[in-house]
């Protein structure tokens, strides 16, 4: 039994801690900007987790799209909508309690589900060390184009790729339309 530190495990716990703590920070923060910042950090940590799990391409995409794109968009939105005087929007204690209770229940259920399956216990160290570092970009790309090279009996994702692409187009057009600049008018209700 090799009792030396298995560095992937250590890194996992590190990234997991960062991710979780900043996620909790998002929940507990009141300032919207701070929430945004904590979110950025959380998502970045989770991309680390992705790398650790062998999904290098996805991790990179996470950083690029999620953190670099989506969150930036979010921050733009924060900027656009915080023009008014800062109004304190505090939720009531009751809502907090209720949400906390529900969240804890959910967490309990999920964790119990996670710990319940014996196959998810993890590999032996020796086995894990024998595994190489995969290159996932090419297989992913090929898979998106329809050819699965890693597991040929499984189907390709060409159709899904097309759908998602068109979907993105539609959404962006729609979002652009929705958020167009309107003529100056008073704040009408409804």
């Amino acid at each position: 039994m090799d009792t030396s530190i298995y560095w992937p495990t250590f890194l996992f716990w590190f990234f997991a801690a960062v991710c979780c703590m900043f996620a909790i920070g998002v929940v507990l923060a009141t300032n919207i900007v701070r929430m945004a910042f904590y979110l950025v950090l959380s998502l970045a940590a989770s991309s680390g987790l992705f790398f650790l799990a062998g999904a290098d391409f996805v991790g990179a995409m996470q950083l690029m799209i999620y953190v670099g794109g989506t969150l930036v968009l979010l921050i733009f939105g924060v900027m656009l909508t915080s023009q008014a005087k800062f109004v304190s929007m505090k939720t009531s204690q009751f809502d907090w309690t209720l949400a906390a209770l529900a969240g804890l229940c959910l967490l309990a259920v999920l964790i119990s589900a996670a710990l319940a399956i014996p196959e998810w216990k993890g590999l032996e160290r020796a086995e894990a060390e024998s595994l190489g570092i995969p290159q996932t970009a090419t297989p992913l790309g090929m898979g998106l184009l329809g050819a699965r090279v890693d597991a040929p009996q499984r189907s390709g994702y060409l159709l899904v790729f097309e759908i998602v692409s068109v979907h993105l187009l539609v959404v962006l057009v729609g979002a652009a339309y929705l958020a167009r600049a309107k003529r100056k008018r008073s704040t009408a209700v409804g």
Partner: protein
Amino acid sequence: MITLPLANFLAQPVGVSQFVIVGAIMFTCGAVCMATKRNALGILMGIELVLNGANINFIAFGSPYLRSDAGSLGMDGQLMSLFVIVLAAAEAAVALAIALNFYNNFNSIDVDRANQLKG
């Protein structure tokens, strides 16, 4: 080689369940954030958190390092994760557009003010 008292704790490779736990925590935080934030963008952030938690799960299921048998999803997990990311981006764009519209009409980003659909 640094040996630690809790040797087993850091010596063994991590399994899927630890990833799923992390994903669960992310998900729960995202759900609570959605449930409690009055700011619309806060809710959006909660959505991002939820989606991210789901992503972690997907990656964990598709990772060859975490499971020994042939039960992992392999590329499927990562592909699905990619799609989730893309769709999350799309959905964030739309949601932001709605929130901006709402802000333009009501001059407030407080979702509690948006109860016109009250039955």
